[in-house]
């Protein structure tokens, strides 16, 4: 009793919105009970819930790059794909257990992110945007083509032997992708049911939220905020902007990589089309719709981008094909009526209210 009381008083110490969020997360703990009571009919909603968690994790990871550091990243699916494929390839070829692959996928994605983002860090705004889109597409095309498509290198003199060997290799499985990825397990217990994954993902989301909150207020988080607000001033204050931006990409990518790994072990089948430009667009919209830089915003944004279409589909039984039409209209309306996002962070809220875009007509 005393313990509950002390926990409650800790909750009261939090900002009211954060308290509501914590309560919502705790409530989610019991949601699968509905599934047990109602039987298999609720399985579909458990699946939707799992997708919600996956996209929430992706949104939170993109939020580091886009929200905290203010880098216009529209190719986040690339990091997600690298994580998922690392897990898929190592799990099917070498039979490494998923639990080991989770951190490894994060590390591989982070290394990949550092390698590709280093040469493009000096690009600004919209130029960075198209380059990240480009990397996203290159990754998808590479996964789709597999190494065997590199046989054209045989035309180059001296490389014909290499091309010969390469043309028989199958690594990413081409457009069909990879199937038979093993499921996570520990001490003989393997996760199989939707609700097993539900708890796994929920735990990850809760941990991520906790970590992001710490990150936001850390020295690193404040450095990112500085860069986002004014890069020149940040540099003048002694912040190593290149290092910090690289870190933003690395941390964001690592998180997306781990999420990719989780996703691969959940669905056990992955294909390049699961990591298309459209996925990057969804992640981008999750962050901006919810409120750029805001953790609860990401969760609300995920609900808007992932759960809302499902709900629309359910409600509009006879006119299901109208669902995406309404969804597009809803995106426009949400932005028009709440340009700061559905649940903006307090810092950003002040910024939106005081900032006057010099180029915007009034």
């Amino acid at each position, binding site marked *: 009793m005393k313990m509950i009381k002390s926990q409650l008083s800790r909750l009261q110490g939090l900002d009211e919105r954060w308290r509501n969020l914590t309560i919502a997360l705790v409530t989610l703990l019991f949601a699968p009970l509905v599934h047990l009571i109602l039987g298999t009919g609720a399985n579909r909603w458990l699946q939707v819930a799992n997708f919600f968690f996956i996209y929430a994790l992706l949104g939170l990871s993109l939020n580091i790059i*886009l929200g905290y550091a*203010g*880098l*216009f990243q529209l190719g986040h699916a690339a990091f997600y794909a690298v994580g998922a494929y690392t897990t898929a390839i190592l799990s099917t070829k070498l039979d490494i257990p998923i639990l080991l692959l989770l951190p490894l996928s994060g590390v591989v994605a982070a290394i990949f992110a550092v390698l590709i983002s280093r*040469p*493009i860090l*000096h*690009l*600004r*705004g*919209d*130029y960075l*945007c*198209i*380059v990240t*889109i*480009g*990397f996203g*597409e*290159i990754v998808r*095309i*590479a996964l*789709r*083509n597999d190494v065997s*498509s590199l046989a*054209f290198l045989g035309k180059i003199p001296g490389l014909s032997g290499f091309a010969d060997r390469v043309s028989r290799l199958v690594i990413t499985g081409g457009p069909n992708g990879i199937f038979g990825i093993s499921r996570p397990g520990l001490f003989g217990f393997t996760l199989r049911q939707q609700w097993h994954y539900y708890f796994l993902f929920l735990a990850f989301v809760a941990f991520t939220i906790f970590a992001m909150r710490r990150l936001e207020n850390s020295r690193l988080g404040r450095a990112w905020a500085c860069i*986002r607000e*004014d*890069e020149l001033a940040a540099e003048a204050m002694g912040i190593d902007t290149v290092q910090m931006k690289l870190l933003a990409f690395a941390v964001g990518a690592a998180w997306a990589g781990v999420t990719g790994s989780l996703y691969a072990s959940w669905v056990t089948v992955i294909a390049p089309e699961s990591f298309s*430009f459209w996925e990057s*667009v969804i992640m*981008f*919209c999750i962050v*901006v*719709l919810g409120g*750029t830089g805001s953790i609860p915003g990401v969760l609300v944004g995920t609900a808007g981008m992932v759960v809302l279409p499902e709900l629309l589909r359910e409600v509009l039984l006879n006119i299901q*094909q*109208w669902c*995406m*039409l309404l*969804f*597009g*209209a*809803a*995106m*426009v309306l*949400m*932005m*028009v009526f709440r*340009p*700061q*996002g559905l649940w903006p962070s307090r810092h950003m809220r002040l910024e*939106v209210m005081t*900032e006057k*875009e*010099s*180029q*915007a*007509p*009034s």
Partner: protein
Amino acid sequence: MEQLLQQLINGLTIGSFYALIALGYTMVYGVLKLINFAHGDLFMLGAYIGLVTLMGFVVNVGMSASLLILLLIFLIVMAAIALAGVTLERVAYRPLYQAGRLPPVVSALGAAIFIQNAVMLLYGARYRTYPEEFKAIIPEVIWTVGGARISLLQVCMLVIAFALMAGLYFFVQYTRLGTAMRAVSLDHDTARLMGIDVFRIIVLVFIIGPALGAAGGVMVGLFYGRIYFTLGWGYGLKAFTSAILGGIGNIPGAMIGGLLLGVIEALATGFVSDAWKNAIAFVVLILILILRPTGLLGERVVEKL
């Protein structure tokens, strides 16, 4: 050598489509610093409206196909898409001019989804073909130049595209409205002080850009004969890439960027591998941007996300 020439011709043809669409991105960006992600879908809508008006003219009314009708169709489609562009600006972008850089992007993406699905609901989720009667307007003549084949249709496409681009260039450089447009893209407040109605210029940009994109849509429909409701996504991305390649906000840059991208793609298809052509196009883009961070003709600007 023959193959090189052939790929250059193919590349210029497809590049001229990219350039026409890229102009819409670059003009809107120049004036508003906004990436109009719905522009590709306006282009796609143009291709569909072109098909519909064509059916109306040739199939229903029973008029024989002629160059005059072709011209008329171009005008109708361009007017219709210009209207759509102005509506888009009024509904999805105008309320967001004060909201910073990111919210209008999401609004644009929402509008893109809306247009795509509206077209799918109206015309069905399958390929639509431009009718054969239309092909009869331009007789199938093929010349052989130095071993490479070039068709009359290709020549017509190039001529129309270059005429439109030249027209736009002269409009922007040598007319009062064009000068006003350039002034607005330099600085809104100063332009307003000079007596320029900034909102009118914005509306003008949303008339010209989508109209050019729509012309591109009809041309793609004519040239390939088949259209699909997700057409705008791929072409839009390519055109946006072209605009960035040339330096976004810069009108000649978009033309050069589009043609260059088309040629790079055609060369990649011909000499490397068709499966990798899009990846190669992006690699070239990234290399160019690493060397010239604001595109080929872009100016150095300090901006903030």
